[in-house]
């Protein structure tokens, strides 16, 4: 398809944006305190929070990125669907309820409730900030990618539009509007994925099993121009030639979810630990169904060859154009755009909390009135939004699911060992927690910088995902420095 301006697509896009902004301005009247701003006053119902969790988590990476990865790399792309969901089991069974009992607004609050340490606070805040920004980049890249065929605008213009909209949403009503936006978007995204999957199967004239069997039995043309057998396409190894890369990705994904700051803060938006658990169960149900559907979106894009070889992230929207023409394309693209708005809003909330609450108020000890803190939080959100726009323009062209996989590895390395040791191990000590966070953060970023992702063929570290080294390293440092601390 040509990427020129499409009036219908623009109309749907304008409606979604209009509704989103209307919700934000309406919700803004309810934001009176910093508690309202950061965690919606802790009064969100568990069912709504569960769908909002799904809306928060099912980002551009899940919808645009995974569909593209499966279309281009078959089973290795599906691995993202499996791992992204598996991480929720860790969140439900180990983290959800204890975290709700411990914290107030942020991941740092939970750790400080046990250690009462400014060093722990600072490490947690910096880690939250870095992970949120790493996660923000792919969302913004996704926004830029989708705006081009949707509105006929340049990538950079799309990035600026989404950045400006999200800044407006977050700066007006914080977590209250973010929750509503994520709830609506999570619901719409499920309907979109279901509709697209049904469309794929109807047009292919097959049931779900025979559709996959057809692909397995035939030859598959990859977007690069080479052909492989269906067996090769739906087995590990097309993207991850080095088997350890597969293991490293699997480890990072399952341990990353429960360590993502924007996921963790949503545990504080419900009234009780039981509500935190119930909303996680709702999220797992919604997200699980969605990830099963992504297999059909990715395979459908390859089967009908509705991909853009230069941009993996457009596989799902272009599949929608093939299945249902301009209307369906406009519907799917607008939902993808809403998806990005919801996730970016959550990420900016997490990052703003780390700066304004953890660093400005708690670490630097700026005792101010709630109104001043609220204003400071909103200003911080604007600053993070502007940074996201700049980074999104720099990262143009990357697959968004792949980038998110790196954010997961950083989160799992820096945050999860500290969080689990704090919750479950009485022997955990302040210096172990602090050193573990810094070790996980620095080692994972360093390994990414010397990996093939950044250095290409001359990479010093052979794996694309650092998790298999940085996660155990961070855990070992946390444990070692805790058990070697002298008593008294």
């Amino acid at each position, binding site marked *: 398809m040509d990427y020129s301006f499409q009036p219908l697509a623009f109309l749907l896009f304008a409606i979604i944006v209009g509704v989103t902004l209307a919700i934000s301005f309406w919700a803004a009247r309810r934001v009176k305190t910093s508690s309202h701003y950061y965690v919606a006053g802790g009064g969100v119902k568990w069912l709504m929070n569960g769908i909002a969790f799904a809306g928060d988590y099912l980002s551009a990476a899940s919808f645009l990125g995974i569909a593209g990865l499966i279309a281009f790399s078959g089973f290795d792309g599906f691995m993202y669907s*499996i791992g992204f969901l598996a991480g929720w089991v860790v969140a439900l069974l*180990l983290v959800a309820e204890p975290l709700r009992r411990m914290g107030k607004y942020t991941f740092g609050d939970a750790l400080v409730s046990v250690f009462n340490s400014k060093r722990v606070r600072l490490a947690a805040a910096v880690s939250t900030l870095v992970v949120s920004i790493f996660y923000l980049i792919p969302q913004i890249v996704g926004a830029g990618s989708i705006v081009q065929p949707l509105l006929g605008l340049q990538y950079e213009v799309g990035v600026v539009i989404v950045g400006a909209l999200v800044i407006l949403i977050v700066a007006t009503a914080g977590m209250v509007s973010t929750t509503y936006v994520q709830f609506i978007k999570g619901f719409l995204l499920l309907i979109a994925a279901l509709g697209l999957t049904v469309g794929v199967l109807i047009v292919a004239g097959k049931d779900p099993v025979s559709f996959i069997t057809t692909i397995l039995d035939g030859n598959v043309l990859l977007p690069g121009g080479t052909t492989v057998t269906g*067996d090769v396409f739906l087995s*590990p190894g097309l993207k991850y030639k080095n088997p350890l890369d597969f293991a490293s990705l699997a480890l990072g994904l399952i341990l990353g979810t429960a360590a993502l700051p924007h996921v963790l803060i949503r545990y504080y938006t419900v009234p009780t630990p039981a509500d935190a658990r119930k909303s996680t169960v709702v999220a797992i149900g919604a997200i699980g169904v969605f990830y099963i559907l992504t*297999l059909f979106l990715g395979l459908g894009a390859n089967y009908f060859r509705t991909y853009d070889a230069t941009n993996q992230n457009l596989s799902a929207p272009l599949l929608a154009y093939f299945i249902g023409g301009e209307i369906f394309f406009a519907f799917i693209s607008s939902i993808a755009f809403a998806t990005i708005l919801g996730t970016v809003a959550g990420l900016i909330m997490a990052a703003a909390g780390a700066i304004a609450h953890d660093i400005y108020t708690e670490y630097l000890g700026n005792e101010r009135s709630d109104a001043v803190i609220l204003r400071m939080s909103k200003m911080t959100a604007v600053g993070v939004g502007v940074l996201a726009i700049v980074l999104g323009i720099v990262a143009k062209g990357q697959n968004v699911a792949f980038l998110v996989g790196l954010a997961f590895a950083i989160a799992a390395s820096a945050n999860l060992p500290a969080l689990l040791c704090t919750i479950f191990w009485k022997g955990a000590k302040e210096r172990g927690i602090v050193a573990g966070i810094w070790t996980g953060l620095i080692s994972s970023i360093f390994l990414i910088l010397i990996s093939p992702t950044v250095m290409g063929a001359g990479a010093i570290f052979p794996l694309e995902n650092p998790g298999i080294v940085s996660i155990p390293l961070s855990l070992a440092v946390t444990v070692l420095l805790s058990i070697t601390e002298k008593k008294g």
Partner: protein
Amino acid sequence: MVDDRLDDSMARREAERRKFRVGFALFVVYMVGYTLFTLAGTFFRGILTVRLGGLNVGVVSGMLIIVSAIVIAVLYNWFAGKTE
């Protein structure tokens, strides 16, 4: 009165312990499945290519991991709700 409150608190703590034990057991079961899947995808990739009812072991086991996460979540929530 004080005894009642103590009983309540002890009962709550015991319920939390039981919930954690069940949750941890489910976590271990899930991790064993996920680890086996990861080991197969890392060192024994041939296993994942074996055909199974029109699909292959890789796709079937991937779907099973997703579905079992939903089942475990519902089971745990049911047990926790009963315990509370």
